[in-house]
């Protein structure tokens, strides 16, 4: 065992805010009222006024800052190091993007302020739209969906609307067994029945199986490309033809678009509708699980159905067009997660066309480097060339009784966040690794060293790996207990 990246240091304990609370402490100041005070009971009616907010914290300013600072140190983050989560695309989040999202005229723009005073925000949205169209090769894009899953829902509703206009919305959506869980959940919410189709022995779309499955009942196929094995679906154009011949559409989950930017465009290989995850490909911060952004790009025939409103240029001025009779409506209030759009555009502007392509190539190079270095130690069930991520299996380690989840937890002791565990489902004991373009060789080598060291530990000390992590302030967490008797909020200890 040789842990090179980390050694332990003191980690502060911290109570919950409610446990720090006591009456009279305060962290706020309000200005003196410049208008007469109003009696709430008179203004709102006695029955509408609450006595107080039972249990709400009362703490001082310094307690607030220490509380959240101490808690923050219990997190791992991209700012600490590599986050090899496959499919999640954890890349560095440039700080200038945070600064510009807080620009006064942007952060304080009210969605209902007059269009004449919103030309700057509209210009930003239009600029991002045009960049995304060039990157995807599609014809139109909506920035409204709040995240990838909502983008999927938007995309499937667009397909439904187009097919309904043609006379029959159809009943089924086909989804490969390697897909993200959001795909089937989305199809169900959009009112479709899900039919899973099996991947072939290489983990790719099985054209023959697809041909058999595409009936007059099928509205479309949802496919991730590159797929969740990190492999490009080389028969994608033929698959699109199979679908189109039967009047069905091709939906692309753009979760892995960071492997294609500047290299290949979905609009050029038969995709009818797709979403992008701005928080993956375009580096807007994950923030511990959101916010995201999930623009949806479409081919011309789907454009009339996009959510309202649409940006429209009249002479020198931008305006919003609500007169869209075929639109699926709104998927979210207002126009989208504008603050996330700002960050994505900043990323695109910083890179430029060539920089984006270079980022793609670095991401693919990094994943291939990891594959080559780890292949001697871990089982690689699917061996086609991979792009931005690589999926190993725990098969060899499982013989010692050590599973992918254990190896993941042991990585924590080496100072790394775990890779993605047990996904995609078509790989038994999957270990899904995505380094992204922002890791340099030094960090990659440390990660590779850690993985190899763990593989050796498993040969000699499997129990130690199975009980990892050992160096964190919190040892392995009992998730079963949490689910069996859920405690979902703090309650005061009774005296």
């Amino acid at each position, binding site marked *: 065992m040789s842990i090179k990246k980390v050694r332990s240091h003191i980690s502060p304990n*911290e109570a*919950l*805010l409610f446990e720090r609370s006591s009456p009279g402490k*305060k962290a*706020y100041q*309000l200005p003196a009222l410049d208008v007469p*005070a*109003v*009696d709430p009971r*008179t*203004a*709102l*009616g006695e029955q509408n006024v609450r006595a107080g*907010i039972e249990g709400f914290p009362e703490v001082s300013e310094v307690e607030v*800052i220490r509380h959240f600072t101490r*808690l923050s140190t219990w997190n791992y983050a991209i*700012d600490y190091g590599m986050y090899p989560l496959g499919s999640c695309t954890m890349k560095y989040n440039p700080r200038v993007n945070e600064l*510009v999202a*807080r620009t006064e005229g942007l952060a*304080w*723009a*009210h969605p209902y*302020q007059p269009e004449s005073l919103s030309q*700057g*925000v509209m210009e*930003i949205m239009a600029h991002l739209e045009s960049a995304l169209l060039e990157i995807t090769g599609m014809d139109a894009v909506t920035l409204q969906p*709040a*995240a990838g899953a*909502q983008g*999927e829902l938007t995309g499937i509703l667009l397909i439904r609307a187009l097919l309904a206009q043609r006379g029959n919305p159809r009943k089924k959506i086909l989804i490969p067994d390697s897909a993200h869980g*959001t795909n089937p*959940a989305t199809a169900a*919410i959009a009112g479709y029945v899900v039919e899973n189709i099996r991947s072939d022995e290489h983990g790719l779309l099985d054209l023959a199986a697809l041909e058999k499955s595409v009936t007059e009942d099928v509205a479309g196929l949802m496919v991730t490309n590159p797929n969740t094995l990190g492999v*490009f679906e080389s028969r994608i154009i033929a698959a699109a033809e199979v679908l189109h011949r039967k009047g069905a559409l091709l939906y692309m989950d753009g979760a892995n678009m960071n492997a294609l*930017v500047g290299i*290949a465009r979905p609009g050029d290989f038969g995709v009818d509708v797709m979403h992008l995850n701005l928080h993956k490909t375009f580096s807007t911060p994950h*923030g511990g*699980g959101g916010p995201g*952004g999930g623009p949806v790009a479409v081919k011309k025939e789907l454009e009339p159905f996009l*959510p309202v409103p649409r940006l429209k240029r009249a002479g020198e001025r931008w305006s919003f067009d609500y007169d869209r009779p075929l639109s699926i409506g*709104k998927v*979210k*209030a207002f126009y989208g997660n504008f603050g996330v759009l700002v960050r994505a555009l*900043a990323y695109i*502007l910083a890179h*430029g*066309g*060539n920089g984006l392509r270079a980022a793609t*190539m670095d991401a693919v*190079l990094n994943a*291939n480097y990891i594959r080559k270095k780890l292949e001697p130690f871990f089982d690689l069930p699917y061996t086609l060339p991979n792009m931005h991520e690589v999926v190993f299996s725990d098969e060899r380690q499982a013989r010692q009784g050590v599973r992918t989840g254990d190896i993941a937890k042991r990585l924590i002791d080496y100072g790394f966040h775990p890779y993605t565990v047990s*996904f995609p489902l078509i790989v038994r004991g999957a270990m899904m690794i995505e380094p992204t373009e922002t890791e340099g060789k030094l960090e990659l080598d440390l990660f590779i060293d850690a993985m190899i060291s763990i593989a050796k530990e498993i040969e000699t000390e499997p129990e130690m790996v199975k009980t990892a992590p050992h160096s*964190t302030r919190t*040892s392995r*967490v009992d*998730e079963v207990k949490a*689910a069996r008797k859920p*405690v*979902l*909020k703090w309650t005061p200890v009774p005296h």
Partner: protein
Amino acid sequence: MLEACGVEKPEDLFTHLPEAVRLKRPLQLPPGISEYEIVDYFRRRGDQNANGYASFLGAGVYGHYRPVLVDTVVARGEFLTSYTPYQAEMAQGTLTTIFEFQTMICQLTGMDVANASMYDGSTGLAEAALMAARLTSKGGLLVARSVHPEYQEVLHTYAKNQGMPITEFEYDAETGAADLDDMERKLNDLTAAVIVQSPNFFGVVEDVKRAAEIAHRRGALLVMGFAEAVSLGILEPPKADIIAGELQSFAISPSYGGPYAGIIATREKFARQMPGRLVGETTDTHGNRAFCLTLATREQHIRREKATSNICTNQALIALMATVFMSVYGKEGLRELAEQNLAKAHYLASRLTPRFSGPFFNEFVVSTGDRSPEEINAALLDRKIIGGLPLGRFYPELSDAMLLCATEMSHREDMDIVGQALQPARSSQPRSPEILNVH
């Protein structure tokens, strides 16, 4: 690295891509620019917008002061650049803050359980409606016209393909509150949920208690939405079955409509039909208190097409902003903040004639008489004031009315100007001046 991969140049790693899919030209995007140029680009775009205007817009997005500690905390890389806390051992920071968030939302709403947040108020309300349908095994939705019109639109988009018919019920033209008699008439045994918002889109506080009693008599659930979270600092939390709301008021920048954070809170017995993430308390192997994501068997990554929702994320960083905001203001502060909003809006109302007589928190509707709302707003813009939202766009019968909002950030002088601008439109004396000057 190239050598280790067995290639000469990075392009060689792409040779397996079929020729037909490859882009054979550079992307038609300008070359990359420097940090200064990026800052300059966005500053110029910001300057094209409404900088330096006083605003009386509310309508779901409120101008509240953002305490400095909020950005200080969320700018920390440990929160900003961390992933969803699936790996509990290295995400206790995020998990603990979400557990505190869930607790504070329960305290605020008087509910038993709250999730880790939704995209925003509009999608939260739609998900709450789908949840009610699952709980009642019925599909009909009865929605007040006084719910935020954009929330209603999102609700339609979500419900349309689930075979869930939506029926609207009216608001009372005198009070501006939901017309519960109309609701009772339209309620039937197929109704899964009655949906109201309080304060409603016109700013009027609804009688949620009575609405719930009527709904329950026919086996429907009462779903309450809210858009102005600060109102909960002073308003009695209603006894709804599901509460779905928007937290933008809690130190989240207006940011032209997003990102915000929504909530869903409910009763204990309904928890397993809730959409979205939940954090629960547990212990680690040493017996220390620890937190982790839990009840994931409701969620898409486990249940796939049988999940309660397709939602994959929450709005963790935005929910954290709201958590810091609630921590800074606390029990006394949120009350005082709400009282200031109440006082400001009632001062503004005292210069005008509110259209509706129902009790309001910090916004209200005013008629503009023989001039259009747009005309009055144009005059106000000349004085660097953005007036109220003209309502004709959403309510044709209110095309001679605007929705005005005042918060703790509204200045008395600006309110006086708005009062004067609307003066000739006054048809009667200001309503209820007796509630002023009581302290």
